[in-house]
């Protein structure tokens, strides 16, 4: 990096946990219901209603924290974070202040600067809290008021706070991608940004090299980023803006209060946001309605055993076990565990990991994309794909013919063998192939001339004619045989 400054980024990520019911009541967490149809006395903050902790939400949090290599607190408690906002019906959010359920972890992410290297990003803490409702601004008929939907209020969220260890917008994006993949594999969250089940706030400032040593610029919190790409762009914009501001004003950290800015997707800029509270005095205190939670070593070990194979380990295993490249392994693992399982079954059926990796990436993924279909619904079982790959690898047909067979299998539900039959594919006998080539040469004297003069491109015409006579011929073999015959002439 030749810039006279380093970019310092820390991320706060909120993910919605995959529970059926809310954190403190039995209301559904399903996305997309009609407004205010999934609320009760607890999540609307009716006086006297008492919250009771959802055990599954706590266990999923512990699972995520272990996946992030965090220390699990043997004793944890919940606190009230007090502020007034129309989407927060109780006037406080139940969150965790000084005794979070986990702390001091890390996540290894691909280094965007060096292929194949990882960067270790430290995690400060991960804690469990409730979500607020949703406010929608409405300017119908000149009335400027807001509409509040409390369906989301009380949904369990895991807040994951990183150390300011990220050094570029690209690293921030890699961190989010790896975090999302990990939480998907753990079954903790679907991390769907469109549905709001993953939200990102970023803290960013610069460390500028000056003759008196490094100087930190004021920290800015960036919000309202709706995709990983938006996070990357917002941070790149913000770093440049802060650099220009530094050159103009020389303001250092502490000279001005921390600012909150919102990313504006259309304009591709950040703009200052009005802060929610005049001061961030949340007056945290322990929630007297909730009992503390303890966890034993045994219980932690039990959750640890349920983690399964994590993406980083799986990437390494696929490379070692199936001889595929780290790049291919990464592509497969990024698609989620069900696709990896499909690949493994196909690779085992054809005993050729590289070929299976190619087929899954080039054919299976393409079909899944076109049909917007998850791998679980892919009509061809992996063993059948494996059989087809086997036939192609053994030279019975070319890859392009193999793709036609797969299309037939997809269209009709036939097995590989039946689809090969249906397309009339049989391996052409070598003697027949020679006869065919000899005939073609005899009827194409001009091509023979060209070939004799070394214009080898001319062979293409022969291959076309050969395919017309018998679609099962192997183009490479036709070319080889024709050239041999011409040489002997």
């Amino acid at each position: 990096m030749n810039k006279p400054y380093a970019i310092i980024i820390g991320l706060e990520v909120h993910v919605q946990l995959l529970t059926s019911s809310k954190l403190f009541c039995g209301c559904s967490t399903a996305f997309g219901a009609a407004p205010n149809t999934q609320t009760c006395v607890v999540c609307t903050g009716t006086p006297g209603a008492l919250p009771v902790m959802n055990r599954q939400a706590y266990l999923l949090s512990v699972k995520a924290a272990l996946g992030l290599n965090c220390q699990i607190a043997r004793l944890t408690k919940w606190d009230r974070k007090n502020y007034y906002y129309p989407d927060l019906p109780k006037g406080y959010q139940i969150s965790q202040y000084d005794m979070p359920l986990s702390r001091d972890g890390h996540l290894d992410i691909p280094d965007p600067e060096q292929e194949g290297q990882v960067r270790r990003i430290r995690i400060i803490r991960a804690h469990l809290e409730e979500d607020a409702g949703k406010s929608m601004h409405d300017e119908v008929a000149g009335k400027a008021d807001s509409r509040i939907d409390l369906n989301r209020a009380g949904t369990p969220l895991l807040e994951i706070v990183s150390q300011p260890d990220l050094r570029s917008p690209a690293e921030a994006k890699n961190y989010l991608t790896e975090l999302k993949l990990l939480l998907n594999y753990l079954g903790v969250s679907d991390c769907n940004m469109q549905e709001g089940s993953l939200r990102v706030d970023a803290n960013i400032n610069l460390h500028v090299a000056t003759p008196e040593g490094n100087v930190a610029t004021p920290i800015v919190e960036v919000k309202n980023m709706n995709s990983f790409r938006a996070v990357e762009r917002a941070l790149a914009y913000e770093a440049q803006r802060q650099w220009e501001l530094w050159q103009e004003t020389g303001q250092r950290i502490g000279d001005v209060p921390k600012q909150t800015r919102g990313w504006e997707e259309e304009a591709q800029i950040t703009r200052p946001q009005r802060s929610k509270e005049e001061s961030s005095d949340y007056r945290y205190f322990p929630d007297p309605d909730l009992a503390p939670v303890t966890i034993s070593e045994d219980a932690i070990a039990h959750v640890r055993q349920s983690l399964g194979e994590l993406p980083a380990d799986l990437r390494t295993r696929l490379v070692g076990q199936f001889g595929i490249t780290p790049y291919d392994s990464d592509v497969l693992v990024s698609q989620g565990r069900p696709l990896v399982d499909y690949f493994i079954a196909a690779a085992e059926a054809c005993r050729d990991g590289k070929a299976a990796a190619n087929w899954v990436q080039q054919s299976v993924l393409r079909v899944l994309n076109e049909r917007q279909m998850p791998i679980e619904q892919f009509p061809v079982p992996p063993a059948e794909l494996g059989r087809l790959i086997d036939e192609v690898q053994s030279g019975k047909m070319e890859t392009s013919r193999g793709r036609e067979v797969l299309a037939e299998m997809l269209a009709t539900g036939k097995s590989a063998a039946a689809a090969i039959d249906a397309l009339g594919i049989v391996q052409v006998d070598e003697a027949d192939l020679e006869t065919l080539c000899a005939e073609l040469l005899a009827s194409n004297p001009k091509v023979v001339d060209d070939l004799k003069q070394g214009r080898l491109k001319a062979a293409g015409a022969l291959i076309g004619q050969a395919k017309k006579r018998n679609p099962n011929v192997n183009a490479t073999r036709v070319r080889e045989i024709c050239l041999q015959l011409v040489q002997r002439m």
Partner: protein
Amino acid sequence: MPISHQQVTRVSLLGRLLLSEEETETMTAQLGQILTYMQLLDEVDTDQVEPMAHAVEVSDVFRGDQLAPSLARDLALANAPQHDGECYRVPAVLGDA
């Protein structure tokens, strides 16, 4: 006094309570009396007492992740000062949504 006029003004602002000057005086005096009374607790020697996170010694109170019926929407909205049959209506929320 254990609580100042200034602290009461600040807390009332955070609590979104609009107090007149006179009410602030009254509150400062009354809260002061309550706090003075609570200061009795300072006389207890707690050096050897483990801090507690909760007033009663219970922990690990959980419910299973089971769905329970939600309120009918008209019932949920019934006590709202303003609603449109679907959502609560509140004075404009500006800034971030």
